[in-house]
């Protein structure tokens, strides 16, 4: 067996140095200023009163008790709330995560909708006053989810456009001698970053500075400017540190404008920190899905037909689409393919991006079905993947720029000890514990988006890199530092990096795992322009002083714009407006799929192996160990990369066994809206996790040869666990999360 990688792995081929994080000392001493940490002089505090029903109208609203409280400045309701402009949803070219405008009328559209906002001179008073607001609702029966009366099915135009097809699925399916036809479901999940969602707004004349956690400062600032009718040049978002995002802080929510306008109205800074509970209704979440997977194979295991059909819940207001079936059908060679997606519109807030939005639910379906097929064929599941591995798209025929899936399988299988597995279910045990081993494929597309960057190099050999990209824990500061240092021939410690501020040159959304590829390429380009000033080759750090003197300058500043192949300068113009429209992000994936026709396939891959132990009597499920091997082109920093994979696999484990937001089927309300009852993984849940970095060289994806990794490792884990549970118990659980009760029946 291979040794598990230590927290600081040795760099292998095509990997950079495993230096500590740029901001490490700051983070262990409590120095970084997250959004709600900004010291503000004499702020007012806002607190929302949120709805107790999911659908209806406000019959009466009595705010007198709240208003009478000493210290209360103002209570905003639908009667006096400042107007805001309707701005489109992010997926239709706008900025919003949810287009329902709270306090615009007396209607309640989902659980936890805002019905009032109290602003007071202390947090305690604002919260107390909000609780004294008396609301009576004329409630109507809401549609909660799939199958609820009143839920409306819809096939959005985009789903039809994106539908992927190859050959003739019906014909292939009817001829296939071995078949799996199974239905899977994945639950609602909330991001629950440990940093709460917060907004502080400070006006200085007609200039607004605001502080809120954002994975895309240009988008958030531009969107807010449009909503409140202010020149975007006068709106400044400061957010150098994000306390975890996972997609939840990517897109502007409706709370921001309310806070900004209250601050203008009252002439004082206003600070809002959403209560943990309120985040469930006032931000986005991972939509629940229901899927049908049909896999047909010949007797040797070769796929001959694959159809993946998905149903996803969304709000009445917006057609957010998870859309992962376009990705699953690219996984394996297969001549006959069909996909479909149907939305189910219910009385809910709008769902949105959550770590590997399409892949997490849909790869659970595919990779579970692959395991079922392996069982039907009486074949080793790794061999089934090998037989169907492909180096090109089964849809368009376009080649992958690189794809090391089977290298990942082989390395992970060896480290895990897979060859010692007895394939028969219920065949392995220790004492009262049934043991199961399972595996699955991880994948994530290499998304890229335009970016700019500015670098200033001074004669003393120090550089400052500026790009409005974001570090929410991925290691983006460190990656930018290393990329600049390498191209400039400097010790990374001489490089200062500034990010997370809409006054800096724009960078990409911290989504779609594209920060390093996109912002990194812009930084690399800017550094190249500096090198060009010295004739292309950077002088050694000790010779810089002389070299600057020869040029007759004391500093050199270069600004660069970079866009991915196939895009143009209009992508940078879109970026300045905070639009993802230039291509990229989860949207971009779908556009890419659409383009098809020989466009190269770009994705990172991995293979994950898990051991589960299930108690013979209680059916308690433990995961003592997981092994993952991942290949993603050039790895800028093996230390931070390993941490991303580690955290990703633990996310995947939690999504398989723990995480589900329970939706009350009658009332369409979130039942477990806190992090004691919404179970995220805790330290005691986490076993030995081995991460293997598989070297891979890709010279085609981008100048740096990097692929996105932040959303790779949590894909596939859930299926690996479900497959291991089957191996341990002989029971196939197709509905996540896998809990004791499902194994007891």
């Amino acid at each position, binding site marked *: 067996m291979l040794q598990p990688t230590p927290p600081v792995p040795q760099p292998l081929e095509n990997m950079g140095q495993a230096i500590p994080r740029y901001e490490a000392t700051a*983070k262990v*001493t409590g120095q970084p200023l997250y959004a709600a940490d900004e010291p503000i002089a004499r702020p007012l505090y806002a607190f929302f009163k949120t709805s107790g029903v999911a659908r209806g109208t406000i019959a009466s609203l009595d705010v007198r008790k709240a208003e*009478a409280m000493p210290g209360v400045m103002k209570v905003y309701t639908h009667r006096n709330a400042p107007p805001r402009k309707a701005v489109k949803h992010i997926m239709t070219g706008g900025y919003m995560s949810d287009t329902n405008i709270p306090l615009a009328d007396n209607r309640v559209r989902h659980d936890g909708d805002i019905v009032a906002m109290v602003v007071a001179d202390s947090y305690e008073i604002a919260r*107390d006053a909000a609780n004294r607001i008396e609301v009576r609702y004329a409630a109507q029966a809401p549609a909660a989810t799939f199958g609820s009366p009143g839920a409306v099915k819809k096939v959005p135009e985009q789903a039809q456009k994106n539908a992927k097809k190859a050959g003739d699925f019906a014909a292939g399916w009817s001829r296939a001698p071995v078949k799996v036809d199974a239905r899977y479901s994945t639950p609602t999940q909330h991001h629950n970053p440990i*940093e709460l969602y917060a907004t502080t707004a400070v006006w200085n004349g007609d200039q607004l500075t605001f502080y809120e956690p954002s994975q895309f400062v240009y988008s958030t600032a531009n969107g807010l400017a449009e909503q409140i009718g202010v020149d975007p040049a006068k709106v400044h978002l400061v957010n150098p540190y994000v306390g975890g995002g996972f997609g939840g802080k990517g897109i502007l929510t409706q709370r921001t404008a309310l806070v900004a306008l209250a601050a203008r109205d009252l002439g004082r800074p206003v600070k809002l920190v959403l209560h943990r509970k309120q985040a469930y209704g006032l931000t986005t979440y991972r939509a629940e899905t229901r899927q049908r997977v049909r896999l047909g194979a010949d007797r040797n295991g070769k796929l001959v037909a694959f159809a993946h059909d998905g149903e996803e819940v969304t709000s009445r207001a917006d057609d957010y689409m998870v859309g992962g079936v376009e990705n699953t059908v690219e996984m394996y060679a297969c001549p006959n393919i069909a996909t479909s997606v149907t939305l189910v519109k219910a009385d809910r807030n709008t769902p949105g991006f959550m770590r590997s939005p399409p892949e997490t639910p849909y790869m659970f379906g595919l990779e579970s079905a692959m395991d079922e097929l392996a069982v039907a064929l009486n074949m080793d599941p790794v061999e089934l993947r090998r037989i169907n591995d492909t180096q090109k798209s089964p849809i368009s025929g376009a080649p992958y720029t690189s794809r090391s899936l089977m290298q990942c399988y082989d390395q992970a299988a060896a480290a895990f000890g897979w060859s010692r597995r007895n394939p028969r279910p219920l065949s392995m045990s220790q004492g009262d514990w049934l043991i199961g081993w399972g595996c699955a494929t991880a994948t994530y597309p290499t998304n890229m988006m335009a970016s700019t960057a500015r670098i200033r190099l001074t004669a003393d050999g120090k550089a400052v890199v500026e790009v409005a990209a974001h570090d929410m824990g991925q290691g983006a500061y460190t990656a930018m530092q290393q990329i600049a240092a390498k191209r400039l021939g400097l010790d990374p410690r001489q490089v200062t990096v500034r990010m997370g501020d809409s006054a800096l040159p724009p960078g990409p959304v911290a989504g779609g795992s594209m920060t390093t590829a996109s912002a990194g390429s812009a930084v690399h380009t800017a550094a190249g322009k500096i090198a060009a000033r010295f004739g292309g080759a950077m002088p050694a750090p000790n010779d810089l002083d002389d070299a600057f003197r020869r040029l007759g300058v004391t500093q050199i500043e270069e600004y660069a714009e970079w866009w991915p192949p196939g895009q143009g300068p209009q992508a940078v113009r879109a970026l300045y407006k905070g639009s993802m429209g230039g291509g990229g992000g989860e949207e971009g994936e779908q556009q890419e799929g659409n383009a098809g026709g020989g466009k190269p396939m770009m994705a990172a891959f991995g293979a994950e192996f898990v051991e589960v132990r299930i108690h013979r009597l209680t059916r308690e499920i433990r995961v003592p160990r997981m092994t993952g091997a991942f290949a993603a082109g050039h790895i800028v920093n093996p230390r931070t990369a390993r941490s991303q994979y*580690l955290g990703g696999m633990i996310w995947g484990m939690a999504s398989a066994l723990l995480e589900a937001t329970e939706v009350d089927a009658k009332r369409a309300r979130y039942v477990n809206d*806190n992090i004691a009852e919404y179970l995220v993984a805790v*330290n005691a849940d986490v076993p030995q996790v081995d991460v293997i970095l598989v070297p891979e060289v890709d010279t085609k994806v981008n100048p740096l040869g990097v692929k996105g990794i932040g959303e790779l490792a949590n894909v596939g884990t859930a299926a690996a666990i479900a497959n291991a549970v089957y191996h341990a118990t002989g029971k196939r659980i197709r509905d996540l999360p896998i809990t004791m009760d499902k194994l007891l029946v």
Partner: protein
Amino acid sequence: METPKISRRGLLGASPVVAVSAKAASAQTPEAAAPALPDAPVRRRVVLKVNGESRELDLDTRTTLLDALREHLHLAGTKKGCDQGQCGACTVHLDGERVLSCLTLAAQAEGREVVTIEGLARGGKLHPMQQAFIDNDAFQCGYCTPGQIMSAVACVQEGHARTDHEIREYMSGNLCRCAAYPNIVAAINQAKSQMGRA
């Protein structure tokens, strides 16, 4: 908005008046302020000893130690992740023991030693636990980190860091959504021997 009826409450509903009255109340002793305005916050002078320094505050008695640190003393290293005792991000030391500052009223901390993440490094030198967190990449976004480190130091001092299993169990009150858990265990293992020697 409805026009408030003319009553004591209605008059108080006009916000500028309210702002003044809140301040006026704050200057009085709590005993005097409370009966005059039933819904008015009771305020109290609280002296907190934080990281070795005494700080005097005039606080709403409901103010948690967490909000006193963050909003009144601008010691924002201690984090709010739930405000209801579920995440551990707000962990500080009170007389050397780890407590959740969101579940501790500021007034309860009077006369006791409060140590926060800002007070852990001494004389410009990182605490061995802080160094171990760096060495083992025991964080990603860093938001849970102050709480993890304060908890980890206490975990070792309590004698609850003898095995990996024990560390995992006694660190399970500190959630890390980035899931740096295995690295946190590695960091505690590194620091515990150095702390013993220190």
